[in-house]
């Protein structure tokens, strides 16, 4: 019985009480030492904070922009952001640390789209040109939003690497920036490693399972927002068979469409038609 209570106590303390509270409870030095040990262990197993995810995402985004270039047309970018924001509002993660950014990459050759954990969603000019209307653009963006909601890029970091990173964070304080350059360099190196892993995962694509999940969630986001999820099938049909990079990781078109259609059957209300107004709005705003 005592053992049981002890385990229960530890469990509750570890899962329910913030380490901040634990510190306040601690009155004597021994208890403080114990609390610090528990706190360090807790920190070592914690997830990246939303702020950390944002900065990891920014480094990946900087790499992608450097590689493909940024299309800086304000009208096009703002329009893509209006579509994206409408979708985000109906997603499981409408709020990110610093919001979502929908950006067009100045790449006319590669048909692709990417998403970083920092909320940056990229669509290449080539893929944007392939879209015939707003609902098809929405389908592309929703798939990427789904990757962010499912935390696919962050989950590509192995447990070992994550623990190493968190340990490095725990061992370091910014107050010592000027004093402890060696540790700061180590922290930057870890950031470099993590950024490399995440960027590689974003560019090369995820597992089939993750891509299927992103399609399934994407369809729901599109439908919840009021767009037609049938546009999902339309845009996939138009994709060439010999895709490179992230889009290469998807199933072949036939299998992808089959999965999407079976998911569509699960939805109680499907918006079947693509509104004329949205078709015209797309043509008016997307002039590449």
């Amino acid at each position, binding site marked *: 019985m005592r053992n049981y209570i002890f385990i229960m106590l530890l469990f509750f303390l570890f899962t329910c*009480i913030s380490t901040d509270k634990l510190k306040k409870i601690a009155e004597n030095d021994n208890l403080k030492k114990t609390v610090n040990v528990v706190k360090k262990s807790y920190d070592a197993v914690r997830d990246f*904070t939303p*702020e950390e995810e944002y*900065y990891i995402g920014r480094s990946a985004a900087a790499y992608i922009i450097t590689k493909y270039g*940024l299309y800086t047309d304000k009208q096009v970018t703002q329009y893509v952001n209006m579509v994206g924001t409408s979708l985000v509002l109906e997603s499981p993660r409408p709020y990110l640390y610093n919001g979502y950014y929908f950006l067009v990459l100045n790449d006319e050759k590669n048909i692709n789209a990417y998403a970083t954990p920092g909320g940056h969603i990229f669509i290449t000019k080539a893929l944007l040109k392939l879209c015939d209307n707003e609902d098809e653009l929405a389908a592309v963006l929703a798939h990427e939003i789904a990757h962010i909601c499912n935390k696919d890029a962050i989950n590509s970091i192995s447990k070992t690497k994550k623990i190493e990173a968190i340990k490095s964070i725990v061992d370091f304080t910014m107050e010592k920036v000027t004093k402890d350059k060696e540790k700061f360099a180590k922290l930057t190196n870890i950031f470099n490693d993590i950024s490399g892993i995440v960027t590689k995962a974003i560019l090369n694509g995820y597992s089939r399972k993750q891509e299927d999940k992103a399609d399934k969630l994407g369809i729901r986001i599109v439908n919840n927002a009021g767009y037609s999820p049938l546009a999902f099938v339309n845009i996939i049909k138009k994709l060439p068979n010999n895709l490179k990079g992230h889009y290469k990781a998807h199933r072949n078109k036939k299998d992808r469409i089959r999965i999407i259609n079976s998911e569509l059957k699960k939805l109680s*209300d499907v918006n079947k038609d693509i509104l004329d107004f949205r078709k015209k*709005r797309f043509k008016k705003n997307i002039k590449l």
Partner: protein
Amino acid sequence: MKKFIFILFLFVSTYANDGYISIKKAFVLEKPNLFAKKVAELDYGEKVTLLEKKGAYYKIKFGHIQGWLHKSSFTSNKIVILGKTKKQASASEITAATKGFNEIVEKNYKLEHKELRFDLLDIGEKLAKIDNFIETGIVFRKNGKLCEFKKVGQK
């Protein structure tokens, strides 16, 4: 012994209701609905008390403010921001708050990766911010029959 367990349970339950704002600026809403009236804005790391859960929304209390937050802007993991809570936080709390990947680490990373176009990224982040976001967004969704203006199975 039973009394001890009961007290322990009450104690733990009391302390389990704290949480933190996980995004830079969070809107506290009057109702558990994304399009409800905004009653306040809270900053990243603000500590709030969780009062109730309803679907994807949490009812919270912060000082005299009460309202609803989407769960994606709330975390039960501790967040403390250096500077903002410096006066209230203990030294150890500040130490914890200043750890992690942040602006300072990015600055150092940039020095080692001068080839990366962070300048273009900053331009992109600014470009993506919609002018008059709230008003423009409502008109965009209304005209396109989206989100709060959608009709089920709409044509």
